[in-house]
């Protein structure tokens, strides 16, 4: 087991290194510069700026500097917000995005699994169709459309909740609805189909024959297996949602970190691009690692290491 973890750890570092290297060369390959402005820009001023941010150095030197920044996890100042470091931008954005993200995932998981299970148990009944209609709607309506819709209806017309900004728990409700609906629908559909499959299997019949209560059968025996596909998507979902979403954060004026992914690239703010990419990829590989371990817990047949457990 420990051997497996050590191996995975080194693989993770390798993955991040490859991602960082690719990002570095790709971002330098896109035409443009952080100092391209519509307005009058003066040649001397531009040179001073380039010198200040080490952009006058040859690419290999910049690359080494970037690798150093990754190892020390210090990405230096943002080019477009020169009096802030990338670390401080991510440091204040991430907790906010993560807070919103955790609630979103919880809501999506609980409501998605419930919908899926109910639909599977009442297969081809009215409840099934209702749940799946909700799910299809949830998948097909993009979250930014839903966001504008809920703001208009719930905040502006009905005046039940604040429209946007980030101040109190009430401010979180609308963005959570907008963000959670899509993942909820996906989870509901996954749960339903794998639940249907699991329910027809022999061991469930055995459990029934043994006279176990239906509740116990569903929760303890069926659901545990049926959740495998949900766990599979959970890793990417977690990494994606916890690190913030550009559109939803923009619409609701949430000071999270989602905007830096897009802004960094649009403005060619190289340190920000590197910072967000490395942060996101680290987070993602960590989540995937956790998911792999979760598999083993949920299904003892899955062995994490070749030589077999006990």
């Amino acid at each position, binding site marked *: 087991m420990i051997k497996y973890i050590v191996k995975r750890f080194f693989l993770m570092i390798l993955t991040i290194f490859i991602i960082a290297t690719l990002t570095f060369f790709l971002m330098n390959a896109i035409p443009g510069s952080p100092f391209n402005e519509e307005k009058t820009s003066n040649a001397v001023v531009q040179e001073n700026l380039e010198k200040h941010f080490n952009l006058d150095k040859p690419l290999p030197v910049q690359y080494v500097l970037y690798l150093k920044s990754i190892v020390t996890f210090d990405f230096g100042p943002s080019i477009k917000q020169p*009096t802030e470091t990338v670390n401080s931008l991510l440091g204040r954005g991430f907790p906010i995005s993560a807070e919103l993200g955790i609630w979103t995932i919880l809501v999506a998981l609980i409501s998605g699994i419930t919908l899926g299970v109910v639909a599977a148990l009442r297969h081809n009944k009215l409840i099934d169709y209702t749940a799946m209609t909700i799910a299809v709607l949830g998948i097909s309506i993009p979250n930014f459309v839903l966001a504008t819709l809920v703001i208009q209806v719930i905040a*502006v017309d009905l005046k039940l909740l604040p429209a946007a900004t980030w101040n109190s728990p009430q401010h979180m409700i609308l963005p959570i609805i907008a963000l959670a609906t899509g993942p909820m629908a996906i989870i509901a559909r996954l749960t339903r189909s794998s639940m249907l499959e699991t329910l027809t299997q022999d061991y469930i019949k055995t459990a029934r024959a043994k006279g176990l209560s239906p509740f116990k059968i569903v929760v303890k025996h069926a659901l545990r297996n049926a959740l495998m596909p949900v766990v599979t998507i959970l890793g990417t979902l977690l990494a994606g949602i916890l690190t913030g979403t550009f559109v939803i954060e*923009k619409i609701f004026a949430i000071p999270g970190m989602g905007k830096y992914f897009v802004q960094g690239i649009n403005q060619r703010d190289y340190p920000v691009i590197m910072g967000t990419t490395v942060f996101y990829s680290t987070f993602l590989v960590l989540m995937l690692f956790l998911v792999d371990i979760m598999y083993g817990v949920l299904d003892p047949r899955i062995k994490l290491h070749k030589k077999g457990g006990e």
Partner: protein
Amino acid sequence: MKKWMMLLLTVLFAFTLAACTATDSSGDGDSDETETESEDNSSETNEETSGDDVTTLNLNNGQNPTSLDPPKGFDSASWNVLNNLMEGLTRLGKEHTPEAATAEDWKVSEDGTVYTFMIRDNAKWSNGDDVTAGDFVYAWKRLLDPETASPAAFLGYFIKGGEAFNKGEGSKEDVMVEAVSEKELKVTLEAPTGYFTHVISNPAFFPINESVATENPEWFAEADTFVGNGPFNLAEYNKDKDMLLKKNENYWDAETVTLDQVHFAMVDDTNTEYQLFESGDLDVSEIPSEMSEELIDSDAVSITEQAGTYFYRFNVTEEPFQNEKIRKAFALAVDQQEIVEFVTKNKEQPAYGFVSYGFQDPSGNDFREQNGNMLETDPEKAKQLLEEGMKEEGYDELPEVTLTYNTSESHKAIAEALQQKFKTVLDVEIGLENTEWNVFLQDQKDLKHQLSRSSFLADYGDPINFLESFTSDSVMNRTGWSNDEYDQLIADAKSESNDEKRWELMYEAEKVLFEEMPIFPVHFYNHVFLNKDNVSDIIRHPVGYLELKWASKE
């Protein structure tokens, strides 16, 4: 095995959780942050208890200011805030002309190159210190220091020795700005610059409290450490989220300021901004583009001119636009009036010249009106010019033309209107191409476009700022156009001490520009805002900063 797994999993989860809380506390737990939070609470209770006597103006700044360090925050998101937190020697008044501010008076030497500013005795920093001439010397030399890498440094090139220092050729000592006494500042300029008092109203020229800045180089980063000298103080600053400005009782003209507080939200989405305006959380809002038709004529709308021009650049190094007549044919085919009326629908002024409205010459005439229309929509003449031009070049068929714009719905609409116009007037089919913003700018600089969308927003209030864009060596030129007579006129205008002659030279220069037509203008920019009825006197200067000194809310 199973127990092992569970144990491991618990440990891992605990670890991730701990990591999460660690980031959390490193974000919020810093003493400053907790202080702002407690201030937050107290201010809220203040508002509740004192009720009506506190007037808070609720505005939206769109984005977090790039930086509140004056020479580094070189954009309107920073200026809107900075201009109300600090003050330079001069300040733009209600009519957008420079007025005495931190300096109560100034003298100009006869040749127009030496300015002596007398700083007010009661000009104070928000921490109680006197604002001294030394604070300006410190700030201006810092602006020009190549180490500072300020994007606004070129504005300091008017000062003698400024350009050399910024280029890394001269020294700090040779920058000719000195403190004659505690309250007297002497500046020597490279050349007489009649509009120098306008230039120094820009936030890049704001003073910096030297003792504060030496003690804490990051003084501008937090509300607690920010020391300003303007009408308002920075009371709270939650980055990316909001900021609260409170009236500065130490400000020399505090009696004029009627607002107690200004709250800036940072909402980047215009639709959301409008929804917040509708729900009463904001007092001022922009108009979402989809709703402009519906809202533009309402009473709540205020429209002010902005010093800037939306125009198109020809690339004179590419066929077919190396030919002047063909350029003119395209330019005359454009119907500016029609574009403003039916495409942009934002009440802009159609542009028939490059310099926008709002600049008065010494005899009080507006530049734009005085110099008249540089071109006029004329389909007949356009057709004729195209024919002549094609004959000159020996074209049987016009080489393919592609119009490039950066990806955006509004630019696309104008580009399509132009495409249509060229088709109906000149019977020329042109292609449209859009690229991502930064790629677009790079290609434009590298002269890879044939005909491309452009815009210009002035840095300071003088027509020369517009016109100097098209000298041969300007980074802003991006047309490949070069004209010795034009270069000379601009150089002469920059060194001319007689203001009337200077304006003559600028009038002449604009004419030369349009004789050869390397560009054609479309419209001038404006600011369109929705205001709540009880809000008045928010001033927006054409050069791009917001003024709240006179603003009031009932």
